[in-house]
């Protein structure tokens, strides 16, 4: 019943996430939170599917799934733009006085 391929991808991605995030310098934990927030809004992809593909057949007209999808698109879009722009703003504050990148955790 369970899809082995998806579980494999999921577990491998967890490992990648673990080792990548472990290397993030503690000073940048706040931008890390806001950028992960932005990328988790990638669920906009399926929300768009709901709107675009949702009721492609004319038979049933505009259904609930399109409306739900549209709401999800709106919320995720706020998050994507908000998250990336907020991260950029924070990072620009760190970057404006970089002299040398941190030597710890190399």
């Amino acid at each position, binding site marked *: 019943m*369970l*899809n082995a391929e*998806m579980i494999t*991808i*999921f577990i491998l*991605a*967890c490992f990648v*996430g673990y080792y*990548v*995030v*472990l290397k*993030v*310098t*503690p*000073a*940048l*934990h*706040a*931008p*890390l*939170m*806001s*950028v*992960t*927030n932005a*990328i*988790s809004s990638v669920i906009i*992809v*399926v929300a768009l599917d*709901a*709107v*675009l593909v*949702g*009721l492609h*057949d*004319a038979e049933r007209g505009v*259904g*609930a*799934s399109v409306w739900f*999808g549209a709401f*999800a698109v709106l*919320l*995720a*879009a*706020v998050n994507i*733009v*908000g*998250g*990336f*722009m907020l*991260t950029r703003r*924070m990072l620009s504050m*760190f*970057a*404006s*006085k*970089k*002299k040398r990148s*941190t030597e710890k*955790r190399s």
Partner: protein
Amino acid sequence: MMQMLSNCIPLLTIVASVLFIYTLRGLSTAATSSNGNLCGMIGMAMAIACPFLHYMLLPSQNDASWQVLGSWAVMGVGGIIGLCIARRIDMAALPQLVAAFHSLVGLAAVFIACAVFAAPDAFGIVESAYNSIPMSNATEMSIGAAIGAITFTGSVVAFGKLQGLISGKPLRYRGQHIVNLSIAIMTAIAIIMFIIDQASWIFCAVILLSLIIGYLLIMPIGGADMPVIVSMLNSYSGWAAAGIGFTLENNLLIIVGALVGTSGAILSNIMCKGMNRSLMNVVLGGLGGGGDQVAALDSSVRGNVKVCNPEDAAFIISNAGSVIVVPGYGMAVAQAQHAIKELADILKGEGTTVKYAIHPVAGRMPGHMNVLLAESNIPYDDVFELDDINHEFGATDVVIVVGANDITNPSAKTDPTSPIYGMPVLDVEKAKTVLFVKRSLGSGYAGVDNPLFYRENTMMILGDARKVVEGILKAIKE
């Protein structure tokens, strides 16, 4: 042409996933972080292109271009709202903004689950609208919706507490754990019922019960535990995305969900270690419960508190050769970082070394202090983490603690009966003089008295952190 386009979708998915990994990788140093963020934006653009390509490939039965226009319009409106929020927001409000963003991800996940439930055939998980959803998809869908709903209400409560709309004090009542446990069991039963019989009222019940869990889970948690909670909700928003990914067999969502989920989990773990507590202990609530837990020191330890004014402090600081500043939540509340930066510049001009020591749980979210210091243009190289600076306090003339308390409390090292015993703390008492800038003599968040206040080498300066630092600044300039 059509063949080429349909090959594009899996390719875009893979490239987008790699770019998202690179985004997180970029954050390992400040120098590479901006490029990483750019990669994330490109990855997101690629991901968003996929559903549009998918739409173009469909055998067109009717003209639905209004749906394409509509999607762009909705995305545009959302994007503009997001842009305005990100531009306008005051950095002091950062923790609550992040909490608010998490709630949006949770709510979006709930809406998507509803959309899938309303038209499963549109997502290709069933043949026609009249077939029921396969068991495995229904399982993943209900779990995804439940996590999304918990993330939503949990983040809304966290937002309310951080913004001060809801009292930061933990809300506790008798039998709380039993109530929470029974609602959790009810939710589990509802999910199982939904898998067997896909009635819409059961689906609604799953979502409703999960919304209640999210509320009840976060309400009992106090303000200073927020770093853990915000990271935990960050993690949940990832797992919710992964749950939706499993439902719709979308690899991109599974990968991103796993990345975000582990990221939030690692952050919560770091925050828990910073308090020497387990995640269960934070969530179930143990500290800061109120009056009953205040561990007052006996009178033998309690001595006289020396209170001084900013002018005295200025005299001490101007004679110091080395200064370490320990910021806490009080600095964030008072927005004292700009005054601190100005003070540091003057001291540096006179040859004094100035460093900053950041405790992992200082503030209300991971990295909170670092962002505020960076905002006031304090050099990245002067800011140190707990483990990197803790051995330096002994050789330091003056430590200025600005709006922090529990993270400096030496009883965490010496007093096994203390509620914060075992928590890693900054060894500020080893410095020659400790200047405590604090609003009052009250105990810290954990309700624990700080023996540091009564030490010979400690001076208290009472008042709003910014006003005090500005007072010191004025006195030094004269």
